[in-house]
């Protein structure tokens, strides 16, 4: 039930998805996912304050298959929200509103977040293998 005249978001059922709307939706979705991921940050800090056994247990989980999958998803989610967040800040400053620019920056965000995720994991795996 609606109790004021606040503007509503477009109804998803009648809205044709485009790059712009999908990226906008993903910004919120990644924001929610990162909120859940932040619980892991607090778990890490708490485990660290409890001592070696708790810390080793958490890192053991993070190095397991499930843990690595979670961390990989978290990395992409973080980079996406970061890159698209910078795009949003540019809009807030009044730049990049032409339709062509909006699509170009949209694709730039997609490729940058994919590229940064892969690069981070290559560095991470290299370090884990004992190279650094």
């Amino acid at each position: 039930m609606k109790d004021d005249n606040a503007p509503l978001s477009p109804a998803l059922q009648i809205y044709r998805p485009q790059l712009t709307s999908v990226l906008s939706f993903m910004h919120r979705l990644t924001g929610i996912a990162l909120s859940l991921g932040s619980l892991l940050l607090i778990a890490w800090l708490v485990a660290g304050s409890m001592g070696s056994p708790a810390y080793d247990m958490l890192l053991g989980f993070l190095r397991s298959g499930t843990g690595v999958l979670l961390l990989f998803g978290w990395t992409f989610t973080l980079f996406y929200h970061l890159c698209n967040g910078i795009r949003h800040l540019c809009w807030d400053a009044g730049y990049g509103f032409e339709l062509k620019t909006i699509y170009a920056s949209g694709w730039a965000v997609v490729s940058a977040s994919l590229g940064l995720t892969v690069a981070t994991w290559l560095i991470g795996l290299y370090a884990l293998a004992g190279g650094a």
Partner: protein
Amino acid sequence: MRSPLSQARGLRSAGAGSAHWWTQRVTAVALVPLAIWFLASLLALGRGKHIDFVVWLQSPLNTILMVSFVIALFWHMALGLQVIVEDYVHTRPLKILASVAIHTGCALLVVTGLVSIARTIA
């Protein structure tokens, strides 16, 4: 009849909307370098043991950055989740309840994080 001035005043944000908007942007800008620093730190710590974590966090620069990261992150998170609730929850009591729950939860997480940092470096 309302005077033109009172009509114009009536068009302003009814609550703390502009402060919310600005705080969300300021924390966003702060989180850009902090998130990159955090990710780089994780890459360096991923292979380490508990003692490496303690030594790393005890360095004054890392303590300051970690405290800043936790505060900026949960502040930004509370504001962002609040906007989502305000967009999709249309009953006022539920909207207020969800908002308060989000801010309370984030405040508790910040305190938990900061206390843990203090206990680690003590």
